[in-house]
């Protein structure tokens, strides 16, 4: 067989497999990358993009003009506006918009003839409390009546790893990513390339620059760590509180055991968040009791997904329902001006 014919055949088969891979990736894994670099926040969403996630749960979400995983924002009018700040638990790429707890709360608290509630979802994966003042500063023009800071697993570590700049708590500087700029033209168009890039990047990075001896992980359970975390979170909550009242919602990391039994895997986190909320005169709401009740009622864990892991990971639709239930009464009281 001539070399030219072999080459042509190889190209044809590669192209066929590429197309098949692209279709499989779009159907069952992800969408092309919709991320762009931000000097302060790291990766953020490109306004107007559509993001599909099929690896953990299944959802197709619209990124609004402000780069948030939410409907397009409309003028506030008479409504009371809550802006939720949080990480991937609030951003909730795993469930459809209608199943996310901010949307559920908007629906639950709507009353005929009353202005109701606009709950803006400003959650973003991989962020932590030190990022929230930066996010909040960009959303001040939305005139929030209340900040609700969603806290959970790993946020204490974010606080311990933060920097103090002029009395304010800020995240470490964003590391330059040379890869993204080079491959952006491909991954912005191809779901397969995006998926493979995310999959192999850690491996390639490790090969190119082998890590030295591993540093011991930060221990966030010591009294000293707790003290630092409380101080820093208090500073953050106070900074947010300068523009609007602040609440803290804590989603504890629970182990969902046999016969409805649950165990809080990081009780120290709850203590830290509660203490900081108290110090900053912010309201503290734990979603823990609602999550436990939901598990005991249905027998199914409120976290995890059939196509990933059940009982661990992000909130599923049932978990969002539970968090919405936890927040519903306090928010109704707040809307009605009751304590």
């Amino acid at each position: 067989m001539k070399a030219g014919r072999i080459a042509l055949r190889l190209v044809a088969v590669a192209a066929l497999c590429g197309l098949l891979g692209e279709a499989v990736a779009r159907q069952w894994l992800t969408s092309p990358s919709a991320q762009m670099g931000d000097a302060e926040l790291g990766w953020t969403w490109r306004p107007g993009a559509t993001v599909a996630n099929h690896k953990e749960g299944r959802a197709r979400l619209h990124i609004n003009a402000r780069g948030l995983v939410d409907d397009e924002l409309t003028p506030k009018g008479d409504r009371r506006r809550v802006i939720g700040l949080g990480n991937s638990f609030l951003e909730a790429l795993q469930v459809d918009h209608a199943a996310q707890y901010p949307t559920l709360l908007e629906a639950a608290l709507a009353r005929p003839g009353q202005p109701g509630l606009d709950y803006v979802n400003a959650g973003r994966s991989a962020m932590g409390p030190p990022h929230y003042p930066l996010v909040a500063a960009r959303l001040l023009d939305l005139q929030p009546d209340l900040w609700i800071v969603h806290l959970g697993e790993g946020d204490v570590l974010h606080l311990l790893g933060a920097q103090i700049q002029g009395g304010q708590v800020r995240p470490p500087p964003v590391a330059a990513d040379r890869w993204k700029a080079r491959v952006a033209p491909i991954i912005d168009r191809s779901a397969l390339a995006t998926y493979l890039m995310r999959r192999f990047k850690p491996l390639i990075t490790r090969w190119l620059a082998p890590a030295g001896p591993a540093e011991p992980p930060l221990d966030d359970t010591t009294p000293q760590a707790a003290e630092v975390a409380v101080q820093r979170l208090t500073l953050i909550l106070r900074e947010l509180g300068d523009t609007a009242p602040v609440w803290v919602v804590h989603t504890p990391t629970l182990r969902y055991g046999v016969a409805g039994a649950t165990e809080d895997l990081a009780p120290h986190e709850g203590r830290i968040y509660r203490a900081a909320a108290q110090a900053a005169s912010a309201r503290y709401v734990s979603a823990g009791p609602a999550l436990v009740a939901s598990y005991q009622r249905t027998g199914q864990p409120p976290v995890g997904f059939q196509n990933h892991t059940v009982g661990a990971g992000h909130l599923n639709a049932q978990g969002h329902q539970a968090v919405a239930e936890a927040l519903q009464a306090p928010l109704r009281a707040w809307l009605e001006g009751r304590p």
Partner: protein
Amino acid sequence: MIFSSLAFFVFIAVVGGLFAAFKGDRFRRALLLGASFVFYGWWDWRFLLLITGSSVWSWWWGDRVSRTADGPRRKLYLWIGLCGDLGSLAFFKYADFFVQSFAQAFGIEHLGALGITLPVGISFFTFQTMSYTIDLYRGRIARCDDLPKFLLFVSFFPQLVAGPIVRASEFLDQLDRPVRSSAAHVRAGAQLFLLGFVQKTLVADNLSVFVDPVFAEPALYDTATLWLGMFAYGGQIFCDFAGYSLMAIGVARVFGFHLPENFHTPYLSRSITEFWRRWHITLSSWLRDYLYIALGGNRQGPVRTDVNLLLTMLLGGLWHGAGWNFVLWGGAHGLALAVHRHWGVHPNHIARSSLLRQTAGWAATLVGVHLLWVPFRAADFGTTWTFLQGLLGDAGTVRWWPPRTVALLAALAGWHALHLLRPAWVRKLPAQDPLAWGPLTVLALLVLGLLMFAPLEASPFIYFQF
């Protein structure tokens, strides 16, 4: 060194390159022996002493056996050789188990574990050295005068740590011939290796993501999830072990050696007896030839035959691991074989029985074998009991049916069905030019599947622990 790791690919490229560059038989045998020692020493170099010592011991006593005509003395040399083999296996693999069992039985609390490291593949290479000594005693093979050649037979890296269990009669002859490899060998070997690699990384490793948590806490999950978990483990262990065997056979083929088939679509078996003719064939035939027949086989009446079957399978279970769960698994298989011997259709005649009977036999075998995978996989008797109770309805509440697991099991079922039907195009595929449309497309799809779905961290093979 794991076949599915980057280190192995570098290793095989270097060894393959040197093998191709130098044509002399002596060099090639020395290269393969050196490579086998590097392969084994990569895990823990200290155990090179063990494998060398074990090989020299068997070679020496085999030599004594073959040079002695006197019956009792010959038998004595055989037993000395076997005691050495079994002694090292007993020490490294079972000492902790027996000490712990003794302490538990007599309530001795201060008797702790000895903490002996289990040398990888000890069960496999010990069986190989034993088969050499026994075959010499039985006069079935000629003595191997060349110690390095014998060392290569025991330590040949493709099958060293998890089989197939190769007998001296199957391998030493190949070492006497010129060590040659051809393009056809390389092509066939690479195809087998790729097929095994796909079975291991795409199927087995992905199934383990579901199997591990389900077996870790079976009380949590509902009945449907436990049934899925049980079948998923059946798929995982088959693809893990059959995948390894194919990779081993493929690597050996690249260097021009033929290793025996180890699996022959065992989940298509229509009886438990047929299952053991298709599952881990080199072990079951080893147990038959060197244990069951040595115990008397079926020559001493029906009761003794049943006892021999039970004993053989009990020891076969214990060979898999030092734990009572393995004893239970082996014993249950022995019992099933004995029951089938009395009431079942002999595998040689089953093709002549009705389709209904064959189907019923297949379904019963499939479910029975999978039910017995539960004690094999579960950590202890308590977990086994909880799992089996859950399968019957006394289960937890959490439902988990991962689509990927279901799809993999469906693909596995389809693959078995393909073997059953064997359409013409499947039969022709391996013999075709790899650059023809069909094989090239299949190859490209397999590579795409690996890129997209194979776990990136190489995980050890299940049978390494045995």
